[in-house]
């Protein structure tokens, strides 16, 4: 219990630091939101009009400390502010639009990468030294070391532009009305295929390697020899005895991978015009949209902290040594 409490206190402090950095970082960027926002209307507005617009849009030149106090106050009230690039839409509306899609894309791509990686990796370990083992893990590592941007554009060009087999972007087809219909769900799935697969392709190598290496260790254990000696079928020994034991450390990294869903798939969403939070973050940074940037950074940090805390708790639950160490030191 005290271990969890101390972890919670640590995360609370980390959270406060993150909130403060969220406020400071956008303001340390060169440039200011007002000129960016009104740059597109340069021909229509005189210099004087610019000043009155700044006032109307609430872009203050107040001292940083006063702005910080305002920011904390509204944050405590759950008010994330009004977007500047999409003025006057509240930031929460924008995030609500993008959150679902980001979660969907993130979860699916992590699951594809994790499942494929675990299967390939455990098979490679089982057939250690076989042709499969010498070819597949290096191949997945090779694909994984491609710059993601390049890989995504290549896949987009081949499958969506050249062969036109899959859609070029967006979350669902233009002719499908959202709803729980087979057409809509099918359309969501086909639109998800390319972005999710590219993310999975890049990450699969790491999963393959980690499960292969732990599994090789497990394979030397006596209980496996025992299982084989009992005459159990190969697949059963590999799946139920070896892989299940080897998967443990990988599962904790799975939790971390989910935590990085928002920040990690920014490029995917931009390349495939996927309407998620990564795409919004990109737009917010390029337009100097402080409130939107702050809210998105806040979501990213909080989700990473929350997942880390959950993993800590799980560790404590799964591994008595962690709890023991904590009690011993206190």
């Amino acid at each position, binding site marked *: 219990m005290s271990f969890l409490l101390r972890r919670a206190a640590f995360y609370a402090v980390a959270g406060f630091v993150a909130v403060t950095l969220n406020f400071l970082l956008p303001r340390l960027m060169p440039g200011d939101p007002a*000129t960016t926002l009104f740059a597109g209307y340069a*021909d229509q507005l005189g210099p004087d009009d610019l000043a009155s617009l700044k006032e109307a849009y609430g872009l203050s030149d107040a001292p940083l400390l006063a702005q910080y106090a305002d920011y904390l106050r509204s944050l405590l009230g759950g008010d994330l502010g009004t977007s500047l690039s999409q003025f006057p839409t509240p930031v929460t509306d924008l995030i609500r639009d993008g959150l*679902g899609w980001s979660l969907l894309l993130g979860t699916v791509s992590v699951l594809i990468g994790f499942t494929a990686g675990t299967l390939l990796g455990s098979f490679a370990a089982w057939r250690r030294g076989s042709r499969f083992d010498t070819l597949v893990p290096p191949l997945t590592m090779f694909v994984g070391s491609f710059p993601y941007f390049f890989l995504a554009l290549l896949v987009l060009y081949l499958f969506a532009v050249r062969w036109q087999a899959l859609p070029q972007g967006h979350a669902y087809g233009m002719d499908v009305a959202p709803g729980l219909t087979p057409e809509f769900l099918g359309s969501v799935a086909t639109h998800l295929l390319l972005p999710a697969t590219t993310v999975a392709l890049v990450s699969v190598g790491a999963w393959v390697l980690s499960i292969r290496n732990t599994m090789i260790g497990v394979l030397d254990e006596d209980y496996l020899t025992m299982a084989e000696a009992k005459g159990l079928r190969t697949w059963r020994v590999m799946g139920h005895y070896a892989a299940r034991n080897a998967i443990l450390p990988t599962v904790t990294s799975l939790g971390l991978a989910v935590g990085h869903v928002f920040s990690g798939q920014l490029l995917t969403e931009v390349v495939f015009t996927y309407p998620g939070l990564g795409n919004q973050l990109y737009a917010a940074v390029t337009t100097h949209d402080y409130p939107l940037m702050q809210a998105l950074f806040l979501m990213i940090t909080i989700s990473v902290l929350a997942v880390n805390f959950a993993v800590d708790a799980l560790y404590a639950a799964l591994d008595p040594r962690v709890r023991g160490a904590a009690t011993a030191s206190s």
Partner: protein
Amino acid sequence: MVVDPRRFGRRTLLRGAGALGAAAFTASLTGCTETGAGQGAKSGAGTAPLLTVASEQGSTLARNFNPFAASSRWAARFCVYEPLMIFNHVTGALEPWLATGFTWSQENTVLTMKLRDKVTWSDGRPFTAEDVTFTFDLLKRHKGLIGYATGAVANYVEAVRAPDAGTVEFTFKKAYTPALHDIAQQLLVPRHIWSAVADPVTHTNPDPVGTGPFTLTAFRPQMYELRRRDGYWQPIAIPGLRVPTYAGNDQINSALVSGQVDWGGLVPDPDRTFVAKDRRNNHYWWPRISDIFLFVNTTKAPFDDPAVRKALSMALDRRKMVDIAVWGKSEPANAVGIARDAYPGWIDESLTSAHAGLVTRDVAAANAALDTAGLARGAGGRRTGKDGEPASFDLVVPSGWTDFVAVAQIVTQNLAEVGVTVKLRTIGFDQWTSAVYNGRFDITLGPGERGASPFGYFRAMMSSFTRRPVGETSNLNFHRLAVPEADELLERFATVSDAAEQRKIGRGLQKLFVEVFPAVPLYEQPEWGAYSSRRFTGWPDAGAPYAPLRNSPRFPTPLLVYPKLKPVA
């Protein structure tokens, strides 16, 4: 409490991950439910295709159709709301729209507009002069509304009156005829709806009611649709528009090339990447209405000297810039900085030919001029400042603006050849706007003002109206230069309404421009426009130049295009 490890079996953990995926999926559905405004949102098989326009960029679209907002949807400014008249910068005409014509009073202090009969709002109510006076009143009462007339209303217009339901009268504080274009092109909103809006600055206007040919029928964060409405004041043949959002130019181009978009903007190297894919249907047309300039900060030595600005100009290889930056599809600029297609009949040809040397590469002449200006050559042939100190300047351009970056590289090479050291720095767009708008730069590239007459262009180039001290934002006069003679000429220009007389003053301004040379004209900037004739015909192009082809232009000219388009049977 200690967590019991046995209750967290591995199986539970994996099942938990599955549940998370399912929850995410449900969230994504509820977050993006259909928010269509009317019935008729169904589309696809069985119905005529909608015209797909690539004019929205960004992540997800917010439902904002406020025509006065900086970040409203494209359709609010180019489909739903209409102005009194539209400046057609391809023909140079001010086209009658909701107004059939205008007259100036004797002293050019009262502008009278006659309104078109039988125009209705999309909710069926009639459009009257009351709506016009209401819109201008709204602009006056609320600071922060953006419109073509924002500046005119704040600075020049005294009163707007409706003597009868079909006439509007604008009274000016003093004669200011360039306001005609600002007033004529102001988008108009219905009084019976906007009078109930508490704060028009923050109003998102989710279900817009306008006089335009289309109404919003479906809105989703990644796309919206507009359909032709009954009772529009002129015939429209196309059934409606579909406006998807794209993350950027690359995504728009791949959609355009693969035939998903009917009307697009910039396609890089269009002959090779676009037309060659489908010669029968893929077309582009790039009329030229403004120039790209090299702006030097005239508050800094040696750029405060016109002779230096002219010398730098003579060192530049403009043909190479055109070939690289715009794939050879343009022409080098003339000495007065007015693009050939911009204002028909305005350019003083005798002046531009007499001063052609100013914008023609001549390294020897440039060197001689720099020597005369007192920038002597120092160590390694590098020129020093007038104070004898070694001089080096930064040339800033937004990173990612590939045409500007290419031109900037040519500039640095050309200037190095005459001994002027310039370092190219690419910076983020927002950093660039902030530096350039506030006068904190040495050299940069940028477009000239693209108004309806050269008045705005010359005012941006050399008037004290646009010039601000360094540190104060000026969005028009980057180079920070003003000459009293220009102020006088512009003042006179603003008091006359006769076109011939305005042109005469325009010649005076051009003469002043080549003397003062406030900025260095480089090349004429094409107006990007591309279309496919696979599903729709009747587009404007070089053979039928009835309107600009650009879909996100400076003026509401797409409204001129919709009535001419026809679906392919």
